[in-house]
């Protein structure tokens, strides 16, 4: 490579050029490293991790100090970023808010999503279950009412009497087909040695009924009532202590599942007016969504029917039992014929009970 004169060629310029290129390359690498560092710093700050952000800030400062003089762009970048540090929010409160709030929001979002998903799933389950149940009722031509609660604040064990009255077989006013009685007083001498008495249906054949004596039996027999007894039995004990609120929670869950389905709630009350004898009263309230009910006449509609009956307390009379029978009878009748005048139904119930008791009396 020597030239003919024997002198070595001048390589200063190329070597300078080479050194410049190497320095530029290093500067570029330093610049990129600093960018990466600043990016991490920003991320930690953004997530509220102040400690790590401070460490990276120190690292930036240190690297800046270590940067060679020729690393111009990296130095410039580091100078700018260090100068910008004062504009960054380094407060701990804000950092906590940012870190926790994000976490909290994420958790809330996930929880809400989970709840929504569960709700939709349960709702779908409820819809399918109710659809199948309605189909079953429709096939049997029956409507089953769930008795959710019977409040008996005076603790007279009256819930049993009410449930008994809510079954057609248990209710004396519905157990037997009503036969309009033909009552003839027995004339003296024809009533046995004691005299007196009444002939019920002499020679047997019943007379045709008056309007208030006839009952819509077919419609009445479509309804049956069952006690939601599983809920009454739920008692949870933890470490020997009964956990309160479980029954209430379970009832509410059950109510949600049975929302719109035919349900009944009852109460037994003692009424003590100042100027009269105390009475025992039974109130029953039935409610149902329109999908569950099919009436023989008229369009489907939501239904709420509330009935009330009371009987005066006496020494030898089962006042709660009598009031329960009439209330249940009225409920059956209201459900059978929702458009009938409630007062007339009250009259029919009282009449039928009067006849049943009259048979016992005479």
């Amino acid at each position: 490579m020597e030239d003919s004169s024997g002198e070595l060629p001048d390589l200063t310029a190329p070597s300078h050029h080479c050194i410049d290129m190497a320095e530029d390359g290093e500067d570029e690498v330093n610049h990129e490293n600093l960018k990466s560092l600043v990016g991490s710093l920003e991320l930690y700050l953004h997530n509220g991790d102040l400690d790590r952000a401070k460490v990276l800030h120190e690292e930036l400062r240190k690297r800046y100090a270590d940067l060679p003089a020729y690393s111009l762009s990296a130095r410039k970048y580091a100078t700018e970023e260090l100068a910008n540090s004062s504009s960054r929010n380094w407060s701990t409160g804000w950092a906590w808010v940012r870190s926790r709030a994000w976490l909290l929001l994420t958790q809330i979002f996930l929880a809400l999503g989970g709840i929504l998903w569960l709700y939709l799933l349960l709702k779908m389950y409820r819809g399918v279950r109710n659809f199948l149940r309605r189909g079953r009722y429709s096939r049997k031509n029956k409507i089953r009412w769930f008795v959710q609660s019977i409040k008996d604040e005076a603790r007279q064990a009256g819930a049993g009497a009410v449930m008994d009255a809510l079954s057609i077989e248990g209710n004396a006013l519905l157990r037997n087909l009503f036969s309009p009685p033909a009552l003839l007083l027995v004339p003296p001498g024809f009533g046995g040695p004691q005299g007196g008495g009444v002939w019920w249906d002499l020679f047997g054949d019943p007379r045709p009924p008056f309007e208030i004596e006839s009952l819509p039996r077919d419609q009445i027999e479509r309804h049956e009532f069952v006690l939601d007894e599983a809920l009454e039995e739920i008692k949870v004990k933890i470490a020997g202590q009964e956990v309160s609120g479980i029954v209430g929670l379970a009832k509410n869950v059950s109510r949600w599942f049975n929302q719109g389905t035919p349900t009944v709630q009852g109460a037994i009350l003692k009424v003590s007016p100042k100027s009269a004898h105390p009475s025992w009263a039974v109130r029953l309230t039935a409610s149902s969504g329109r999908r569950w009910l099919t009436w023989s006449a008229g369009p489907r509609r939501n239904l709420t029917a509330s009935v009330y009956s009371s009987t005066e307390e006496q020494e030898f009379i089962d006042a709660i039992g009598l009031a329960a029978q009439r209330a249940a009878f009225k409920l059956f009748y209201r459900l059978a014929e929702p458009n009938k005048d409630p007062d007339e139904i009250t009259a029919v119930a009282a009449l039928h009970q009067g006849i049943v008791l009259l048979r016992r009396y005479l």
Partner: protein
Amino acid sequence: MENSSSETTRVREVEGEFIQRRQELLNTILRNFEVTRLNLHYPQFSPELSLISFYEATALSGSDDHTTDGKRELEALRRFEAASKLVEFADALYAQGVESSSLREYWIVGFHARYNAVVLRHRQVVARKTDLQNERLNLDAYKDLREITNNYETLDAQLSSSNLAEIASDLLSVKAAVLCGRLSCLCSQLAIAQEQQMRNEETELVRVIDEARQSLVKHVDFADQASTDSGSKLHASAIKASMEHICPAKMNRPPEGQTRS
């Protein structure tokens, strides 16, 4: 001695409890019918309200409480008379052209009420005019019983009215009861006539009673055959047995020295 005394006390307690039970039951029955009446928004006279009156009256007349001085019987009588208006109501509708078959229940309950009102008066006479010592009716009752017999006969004639021909089968039982009441009344009259040696009346009564017995037996047999109820035979035989008890055939013999016509 002590045992006997405590047993008597216990018997009285049981009797008292029984009376109280019946009293409470009657109160409850009447309250039920009162609730029925109050909740029917019908005009003052309506078939339904008459029906309630009929039931109330039956409950009151079935009472065995004699402490009310006849107030209860009077109230029952008033209500039976109110229910009797069903007959007039049905007659009026029939005159306007309503078919008798659709008025059956009104006529049946109305005639039952009319009959019960007569029986109630009959019972009152028997209860008030019976000598407690010898358990026989006194002479004073004779005239009242005659009037009641007439009431039974009027009722019997009404039941045989041509208007009721279509529903005659529904009125067989009330007609049988009317014949029972009439026979009971006649037999009581005969007993008084025999006691008081009222020869002419006795002769006439024997004749009428003989006819009444035959008429009752005939009607009861007819009602029994017409009925589809299995208990009708029991009713028929009970009525015949009671008839023999209150008015045996041998009692109907004519007074000595006279022959039956």
